[in-house]
């Protein structure tokens, strides 16, 4: 069934888009990630303009993260003070991200920068994840216990000034890394159409030593806030949020996530992480191929006045 996307300005098969939302939702439920870094590329590869993909996925992330955030809220598994600092710095980062997004768009270099960022991030994170999961698989096969993480030990981050006390996390750390983290995630989220949970969660655990019982809920709150702001700003400054596309993705996503969670409970963690790593690497390689292969059509048109192409 063809459905017309008013902002993207093209007709798409509704079931294909719904299926994409569902598939990414399934994976996000399976792996416990937001899925923006998979959904945005998938939309771009299927022909939706990158500007529309990024802005629209921001609103889809709000939907998929808010339902999980709500359940953590009910169980009081959130450090509100930490979330507030992350949110405020995230809002500033998001604002700057949207400004850079629009500037790059005017220069005609947005697609290029997006591709380069995706290749870099996905390549880096995919490689790290793959290495870690393969190592833990080898360890468990040889019957060695997984090396214990020295979670209690302090690192250089804890020697920075401007310390703040976060009671819920039982932390007394400098505000600098917290603000930098919130800002960076907000900036990347607005620019690339990702929630950033796959960066934020490990950073909170390994860098700041935030206890694992509040880390997911706190990062979800931050993601809901910054992606809501990103949606508003994209809609306001460039009119690129497609509400029809967003709704199809949201519904597909929340349904797919339910199945993903159930399947995920029956698969071993290290195998799951290796699978996710391969997936992340595949998406990164796809972007790399797009950058270096000669394009079929070297010319492109951008309409300045008077509607869609």
């Amino acid at each position: 069934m063809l459905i017309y996307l008013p902002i993207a300005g093209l007709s798409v098969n509704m079931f294909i888009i719904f299926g994409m939302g569902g598939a990414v939702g399934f994976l996000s439920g399976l792996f416990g990630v937001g899925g923006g870094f998979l959904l945005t590329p998938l939309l771009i590869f299927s022909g939706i303009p990158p500007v529309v993909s990024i802005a629209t996925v921001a609103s889809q992330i709000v939907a998929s993260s808010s339902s999980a955030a709500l359940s953590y809220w009910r169980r009081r598994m959130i450090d509100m003070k930490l979330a507030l600092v992350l949110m405020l710095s995230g809002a500033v980062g998001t604002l700057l991200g949207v400004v850079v997004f629009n500037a790059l768009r005017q220069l005609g270099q947005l697609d290029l920068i997006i591709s380069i960022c995706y290749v870099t991030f996905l390549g880096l994170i995919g490689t790290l994840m793959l290495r870690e999961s393969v190592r833990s698989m080898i360890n468990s096969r040889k019957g060695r216990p997984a090396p214990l993480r020295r979670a209690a030990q302090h690192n250089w981050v804890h020697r920075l000034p401007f310390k703040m006390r976060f009671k819920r996390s039982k932390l007394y750390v400098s505000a600098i890394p917290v603000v930098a983290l919130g800002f960076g995630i907000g900036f990347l989220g607005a620019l690339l159409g990702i929630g950033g949970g796959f960066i934020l969660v490990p950073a909170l655990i390994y860098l700041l030593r935030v206890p694992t019982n509040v880390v997911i809920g706190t990062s979800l709150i931050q993601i809901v806030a910054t992606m809501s702001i990103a949606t508003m700003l994209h809609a306001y400054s460039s009119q690129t949020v497609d509400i029809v596309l967003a709704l199809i993705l949201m519904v597909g996503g929340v349904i797919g996530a339910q199945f993903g969670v159930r399947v995920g409970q029956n698969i071993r963690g290290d195998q799951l992480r290796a699978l996710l790593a391969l997936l992340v690497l595949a998406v990164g390689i796809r972007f790399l191929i797009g950058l270096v292969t000669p394009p079929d059509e070297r010319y492109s048109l951008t309409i300045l006045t008077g509607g869609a192409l």
Partner: protein
Amino acid sequence: MAILAGVFGLVAGSAAAETLTIALSTAEIKVNSTFSGETVTLFGVIERDAATVSRNTDYEIAVVLRGPPQDVIERRKDRIAMVWVNSASETIVAAPSFYALDTSGELAEISTPPILARNEIGFDSIDFQYKGRDGADDPVATEFRDAFVRLKKNAGLYSEQPAGVSFIGGTDDVFQAAMWIPANAPDGEYTVEVFLFSGNALLAREEGRLHITKVGFEQLMYSSAHNHALLYGLACVLLALFTGWLAGVIFRRD
């Protein structure tokens, strides 16, 4: 045939030569979400009076349908350090967003290049204005112009139909042209120009109008996204939060 001319047609021309009377099958097209394109038929009559000289060459007709003008940035990718990057760019001012040419024969047999160029009949004759460039002789402008026409043709927005105009029922003075309006045709005011030629000479010219309006839910969304951007953004966020909340309620397991 005068009946056909009655509703939308306009009558014009000089007293001595032929005059053209045209009528479109519709003056307005409403594009909704299920719109997959539509044919607009143009009817025309060549009228002669007693003073008109008899001609020993056939009549030829050219019909140009033009969409509203658009300013467009055209970019070219070049290879810079292994990577394909948008490098060169040109801005075209007020290029026709849509251009369909229907003729009764090959352009070369209808008239001479100078006359075609003066009336902007045919892709080669469209007067593209490149910002900061002189036009026809500039090799860069020519290169970008060819690419622009190719992209527009591929998008179905530019077309040339050498057999698009046919004379009805063996007559030599009543003709029709079926013009295809694709689903992606931009909305706005379109102009139809009809040219009458004989023996390469332009005898008469007539103009009509066609309006394309987008209607329905999708148009409402498009216009609110542009005219009430902040409210639209807020609506998107609320929709997302509501969907998330609803999913939480439906699939709640704790």
